[in-house]
């Protein structure tokens, strides 16, 4: 098998991968689009619209933010297993989507709170954990660009390890909100990515890939 054939077999077909990547980059916007009718009703002062918007925001934005966070954490491990590099561009996009969706969820929780806005984002322990997970992402979102990478050098990676703190707070948020039933889906969503980030596991996977002679692309 020639290098070109190996490369073609381990890369997604060039014809459609750009469209797939762009679709994946824009997909989280659908969560915001689903809220538009409720948001319009809320802004036009419909009675009861605030509760509907708060519930929908919690369901659509919160759930999508968890999925985009899982995607962000999966981008690296996918490269470890497959040798692909084309998906790396999605890491920053999905991370920024996580931040934007979570911030919008937080904003809607604040403006639709029945009492004070602070009660809407930190009135209970589960809300406070969600707000903390969102706000701890601010420095990560602000530094998700090449200039910050250049300015911070090797400390950029150290700073961005705060994503594990975000994940921990999200887990606390969901466990308090849903209960122990959330643990299974969380393990399925985040378990493989986290396991593949353990250096010993990562080295074993890379050794296995090297033994099968699948090059990076």
């Amino acid at each position, binding site marked *: 098998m020639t290098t070109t054939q190996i490369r073609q077999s381990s890369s997604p077909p060039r014809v459609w991968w750009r469209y797939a990547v762009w679709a994946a980059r824009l997909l989280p916007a659908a969560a915001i689009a689903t809220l538009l009718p409720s948001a319009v009703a809320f802004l036009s002062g419909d009675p009861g619209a605030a509760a509907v918007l708060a*519930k929908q925001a919690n369901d659509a934005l919160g759930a999508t933010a968890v999925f985009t966070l899982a995607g962000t954490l999966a981008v690296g491990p996918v490269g470890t297993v497959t040798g692909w590099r084309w998906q790396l561009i999605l890491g920053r996009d999905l991370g920024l989507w996580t931040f934007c969706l979570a911030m919008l969820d937080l904003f809607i929780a604040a403006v639709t709170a029945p009492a004070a806005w*602070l*009660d809407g*984002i*930190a*009135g*209970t*322990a*589960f*809300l*406070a954990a969600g*707000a*903390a*997970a969102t*706000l*701890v*992402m*601010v*420095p*990560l979102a*602000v*530094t998700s660009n090449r200039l910050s990478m250049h*300015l*911070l*050098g*090797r*400390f*950029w990676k*150290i*700073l961005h390890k*705060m994503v594990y703190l975000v994940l921990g*707070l999200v887990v606390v948020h969901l466990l*308090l*909100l849903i*209960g122990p039933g959330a643990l299974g889906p969380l393990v399925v969503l985040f378990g493989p990515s986290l396991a593949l980030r353990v250096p010993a596991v990562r080295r074993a996977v890379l050794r296995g890939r090297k033994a099968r002679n699948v090059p990076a692309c």
Partner: protein
Amino acid sequence: MLTIRARRALAAALIAVGMLLAAAPAAVELHTHGWDSWTVAPPFDDN
């Protein structure tokens, strides 16, 4: 070009900002209303 010390300080400052932002809502809420009003269960939880 920033020195290593400046980069480290910048990263530490950003981490501190993140921590403060994360802790602020809960801290203000607890300071305002106290622990007694702070429940674990969400208000719309039927359980």
